[in-house]
């Protein structure tokens, strides 16, 4: 993974010293809250419903075991012993004291981490495929390009005060696991260069991104992004926060006209001054080598025997592992969705266990997925059972990846000051309703995504089943969306039926799933495929109790 150079160290050290001074001045009353608020937000510190929340950037979701242990240390020392992994591949701590933040940022800097670009109207942490560099279907590794964008965008003076926040996602595989079509800019690496999608996003006004350029050379990536951002920065609306995202500009201009303006702007730029030289790209790529793979003898027959003897292990291998570029390895997803617990949360002890697992079995590397799970990208098949047992002993062996209980859920009104309704208790209820492993396996791949408000941090627009919490005069209601997906066939879900109370949602989903199981052609037809074949209306009636 990338290692800070002298410039990275100097920037983070200087920023931390600056923020330490700002915190001291705020505590002494030399800064008002109005003056301090934008400063703390630029350092990832929010004031939420119950306390300060610190959001820490995990650049493109890549973590070392040492960094994960630092998260455990922060959870134990400064928080209430847990952290929440987010849909932006970051981590949030919900119970941080203002006076502790300078020390926390110093602790983070010691492991080359920070909380910069996790708030504000800047270019946020670039997200990518959690299996980058490991997946069998990968065309090119997106991590060096995400790192290049990180270096270009951090403290970019022109793009620090954009009309609104700006999110870039990259995928380098044939399957889109980074949800690129619902990002401000989505980049698809192909064997001919980058396909550039612009104007995607969720929130109040969801849009799918439009393809505005194909085959963009990696060596021209930064100047093209600069042109795209410059057009947005110049013409994006600043008069209405709800219309300030680039998706509104692209929609208003039309994708072709926006693309034309970007090309025009691009032609005026001194591209050589912006684009990274070939040697610099090569230098960054050198930080992302394949690990020194251990040649461990793998006995397929022995693995089959172990699976036959341990049904839990067999299910975990089936659901939580993904084909690796090497036949003797797999990528393992550690589900943070155990039955009845909040999606994405991990205790400090579990963070330490995951770090230990990475050191013992995965060359010291972990990833955070936007589905709020943790990934060990490179695990020798010969180590799978030992890894499983370690995880199982620590409540980390839920074998539900990609299944109905592997839900995305934002923190919702239990923590978030923007939320209208709670997400976590609903996720817990659904998880308990579908706790039966045989049933969830029978249902197959199904993504439920829950947001506690229209800002859509829980990605409800692109859930096969999306759930949006709303407040109706002091009562929580939940709208159900069907048919969304965030993959290479991205589609926005559509609200189906009337809003339901929290108590009614699990039973409604049960009826919906029962109907799906009756209607599907066979067990290979996934829920989203059946909805696509028959239409959402075929399922609307099941959401409500028969009269």
């Amino acid at each position: 993974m990338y290692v800070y150079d002298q410039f990275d160290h100097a920037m983070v050290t200087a920023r931390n010293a600056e923020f330490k001074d700002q915190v001291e001045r705020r505590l002494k009353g030399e800064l008002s809250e109005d003056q301090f608020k934008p400063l703390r937000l630029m350092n990832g510190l929010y004031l939420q419903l119950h306390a300060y929340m610190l959001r820490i950037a995990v650049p493109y979701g890549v973590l070392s075991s040492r960094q994960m242990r630092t998260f455990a240390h922060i959870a134990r020392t400064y928080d209430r012993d847990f952290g929440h992994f987010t849909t932006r591949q970051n981590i949030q701590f919900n119970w941080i004291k203002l006076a502790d933040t300078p020390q926390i940022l110093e602790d983070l800097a010691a492991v080359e981490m920070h909380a910069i670009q996790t708030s504000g109207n800047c270019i946020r942490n670039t997200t990518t495929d959690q299996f980058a560099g490991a997946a069998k279907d990968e065309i090119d590794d997106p991590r060096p390009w995400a790192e290049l964008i990180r270096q270009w965008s951090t403290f970019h003076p022109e793009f620090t005060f954009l009309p609104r926040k700006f999110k870039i996602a990259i995928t380098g595989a044939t399957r889109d696991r980074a949800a690129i079509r619902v990002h401000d800019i989505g980049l698809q690496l192909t064997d001919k260069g980058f396909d550039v999608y612009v104007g995607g996003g969720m929130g109040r006004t969801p849009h799918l991104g439009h393809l505005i350029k194909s085959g963009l050379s990696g060596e021209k990536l930064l100047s093209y992004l600069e042109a795209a951002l410059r057009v947005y920065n110049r013409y994006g609306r600043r008069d209405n926060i709800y219309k300030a995202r680039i998706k509104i500009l692209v929609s208003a201009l039309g994708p072709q006209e926006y693309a034309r303006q970007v090309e025009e702007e691009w032609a005026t730029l001194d591209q050589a001054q912006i684009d990274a030289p070939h040697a610099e790209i090569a230098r960054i790529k050198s930080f992302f080598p394949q690990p020194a793979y251990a040649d461990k003898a793998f006995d397929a027959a022995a693995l089959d025997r172990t699976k036959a003897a341990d049904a839990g292990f067999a299910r975990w291998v089936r659901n939580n592992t993904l084909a690796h570029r090497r036949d003797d390895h797999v990528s393992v997803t550690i589900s943070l969705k155990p039955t009845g617990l909040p999606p994405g949360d991990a205790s400090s002890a579990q963070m330490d266990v995951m770090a230990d697992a990475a050191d013992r079995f995965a060359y010291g590397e972990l990833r955070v997925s936007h589905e709020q799970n943790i990934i060990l990208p490179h695990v020798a098949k010969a180590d799978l059972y030992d890894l499983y047992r370690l995880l199982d002993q620590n409540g980390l062996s839920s074998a539900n990846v990609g299944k109905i209980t592997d839900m995305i859920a934002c923190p919702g009104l239990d923590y978030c000051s923007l939320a209208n309704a709670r997400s976590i208790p609903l996720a817990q209820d659904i998880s308990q309703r579908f706790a039966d492993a045989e049933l969830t396996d029978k249902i197959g791949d199904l993504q439920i995504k829950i947001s506690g408000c229209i800002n859509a941090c829980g990605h409800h627009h692109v859930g096969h089943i999306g759930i949006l919490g709303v407040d109706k005069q002091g009562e929580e209601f939940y709208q159900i969306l069907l048919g969304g997906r965030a993959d290479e066939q991205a589609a926005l879900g559509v609200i189906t039926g009337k809003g339901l109370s929290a108590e009614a949602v699990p039973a409604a989903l049960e009826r919906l799933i029962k109907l799906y199981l009756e209607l599907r052609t066979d067990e290979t037809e996934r829920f989203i495929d059946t909805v696509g074949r028959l239409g959402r209306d075929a399922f609307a009636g099941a959401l409500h109790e028969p009269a």
Partner: protein
Amino acid sequence: MKLLTANRLTDGLVLWYAGGPDLSGWTEDAALATRLEDEAAAALLEEWKARETEVVAPYLVPLVDENTLVKREYVREHVRANGPTAGQTAFDTARQHQRGEVF
């Protein structure tokens, strides 16, 4: 009738005004919050808005009666008063104050 609430500057925790001239008069336990008449509540709000080294973002929570929140404020203020309803810290507040839910 209203409650005055805010977050403490130093740690961001939810506080409720419970009488007295300084921060020691505030409580983390919503059950102990002073029920204020509207006029007194408005005056206290203005006073505490200016005391930014002690509390952040003070505001008033309307009540129907001494123990009933106005319905449109219900979920948000119920969660603020009782702590997260889910997860590792659910019901910390109730445990800390050795009481059941308020409002």
